């Protein structure tokens, strides 16, 4: 009764407090306050990045004042300071891509095997192993960086700070992401396909290769993508295991540049990284769509891919 009485009151007589309460509370009303906060947040999360990319096209040497458009100056035209001609920037780009590639090559197969093992192995040690796998996900990167740095300095002294050491570090923190993604897919597939294959006379090897592997491919693809993204994004581990200027990655270059006087070429370098990630994301999406074209659930490929990735 009070409900109806409240609703029938004219708008003007409702106090402002009441209105604020309604905005927060009513799940079916028109929440103008929430709309405002959400869109302000979304804009503020994206606009600074767009502005930073914009400055990579600045024709002048400033990263704070717009001096006109130049498509290529900071990417390749400037003979000294562009990404292509500044050896430190070019080297950082190569190093980042090299590390991401190595990480994908090592972490993905290792993680797929680990996911299969952890999901199906029923031994006394399997639950400690499961527990161990989760730890890298919650350990702050600084702690991981310090410990890897100390272990190669004092215990595994045959590994020196180097690209190889950086690769080992990257694999260590990206492994668990692969496991989480692949395991999610493994649970959603279930075991019935493999059981059917066995009933029809497939050997274990055949059912692994001809049934399980193709079914896992979308998750493997998502893992490759995630590993690429988190490896190219990583700053802390790369820095702690760095061998000096030779091992600098893109994030390390950005880090040292922001503390000196940055040129738009650093923005260009950072923007290149964004382009790479977007291209990789688009490519993965297309391949994923193609591979799951026969098992499209309601919501389409986007939803199921997000489901696979969002498992983490």
């Amino acid at each position, binding site marked *: 009764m009070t409900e109806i009485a409240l609703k029938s009151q004219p708008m003007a007589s409702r106090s402002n407090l009441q209105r604020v309460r309604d905005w927060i509370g009513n*799940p079916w009303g028109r929440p103008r306050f929430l709309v405002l906060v959400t869109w302000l947040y*979304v804009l503020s999360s994206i606009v600074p990045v767009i502005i*930073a990319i914009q400055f990579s096209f600045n024709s002048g040497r*400033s990263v704070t004042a717009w001096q006109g458009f130049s498509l290529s100056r900071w990417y390749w035209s400037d003979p000294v300071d562009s990404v292509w001609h500044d050896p430190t920037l070019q080297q950082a780009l190569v190093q980042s891509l090299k590390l991401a590639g190595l990480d994908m090559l090592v972490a993905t197969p290792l993680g797929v095997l680990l996911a*299969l093992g952890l999901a199906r192995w029923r031994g006394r040690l399997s639950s400690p192993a499961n527990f161990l796998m989760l730890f890298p996900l919650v350990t702050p990167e600084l702690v991981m960086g*310090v410990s890897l740095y100390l*272990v190669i300095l004092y215990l595994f002294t045959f590994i020196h700070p180097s690209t190889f050491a950086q690769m080992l570090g990257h694999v260590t923190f990206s492994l668990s992401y692969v496991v989480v993604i692949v395991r999610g897919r493994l649970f959603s597939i279930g075991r019935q396909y493999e*059981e059917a294959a066995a009933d029809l006379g497939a050997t274990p090897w055949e059912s692994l290769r001809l049934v399980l592997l193709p079914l896992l491919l979308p998750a493997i693809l998502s893992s490759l993508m995630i590993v690429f993204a988190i490896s*190219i994004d990583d700053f802390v581990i790369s820095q702690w295991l760095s061998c000096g200027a030779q091992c600098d990655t893109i994030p390390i270059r950005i880090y040292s540049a922001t503390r000196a006087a*940055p040129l738009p070429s650093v923005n260009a370098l950072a923007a290149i990284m964004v382009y790479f990630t977007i291209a990789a994301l688009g490519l993965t999406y297309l391949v994923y769509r193609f591979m799951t074209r026969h098992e499209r659930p309601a919501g389409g490929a986007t939803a199921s891919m997000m489901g696979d990735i969002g498992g983490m």
Partner: protein
Amino acid sequence: MYPKWLWAVFALPGVVWLILLFLTPFYAVIGVAFGGVDPIFQNPLPAWNPLDWDFTSFLDTLRGFLPGRTYWGIFLRTTEYVAIALSLCLLIGYPVAYYISRHTRRTKSLLLALLILPFWVSYLMRMLAWVNLFAPEGYVNGFLRWSHLVTTPPDWLNGNPVSVILGLVYGYIPYLILPLLASLDRIDKSLLEAARDLGASPFSAFLQVTLPLSKTGILGASVIIALPMFGDYYTPNIVSGSPKTSMLGNQIDIYFHGGPQPSVGAALTLILSAFLGVLMAYYMYTVSKAQRESQA
């Protein structure tokens, strides 16, 4: 159908990898923290055998956290920054997650994609964008001058705690919103309808149904961003670079890369991990308690 040993064999390489490159390194931190120091060269002499552990220098470092001692100020500042940044993240993040989970139909996929977008832009790239905006002649100060809100715009990038906190919020809020959204999405909407049918006002339905049901989600999302925030050193370095705003992570960084004193750095790392371990344990305890209560 598969041989029994197969899955153990599959898990083996990954488990060995994690033991060698995750657990052993952590043991190395312990060894260095509890080891001795070369009296002449000041190099750490790690002690690998637990019987050789020497706790004197570690306890000295630990005592530094007592009120008024060496690390008290920095510990207080770190906690303060993380607490304020976390509260701001929740204040902004909760309404955003709530709106997207409750009120959007057609725009939901678009908003989700926009929420995920920052994940695909490197953290350092986002900090670079932030630094560009807040530079002395940047857009933010330009706007402040143009709007005559202030006559002399503040120096954002030189030991300004406000920028460090805003930097932390900007950097970590995407990692808070997604888990929060997932937990809000899981709430059964018929419970809300029931509350309304039983006469709850919209506001009290929110307070008594939605908010309590999203408590573990809030806690989980907070832990997810608080852990890395406590270990952050690059954000204060990038947006401030001044000792006035340095956090615990900066102190650890300095002990390794500044005037090298690795054993003190290792001791601090250990203390930080123990502190975060307690936070984590508290979180897991709360979650399991909530699960037991919902089953009972």
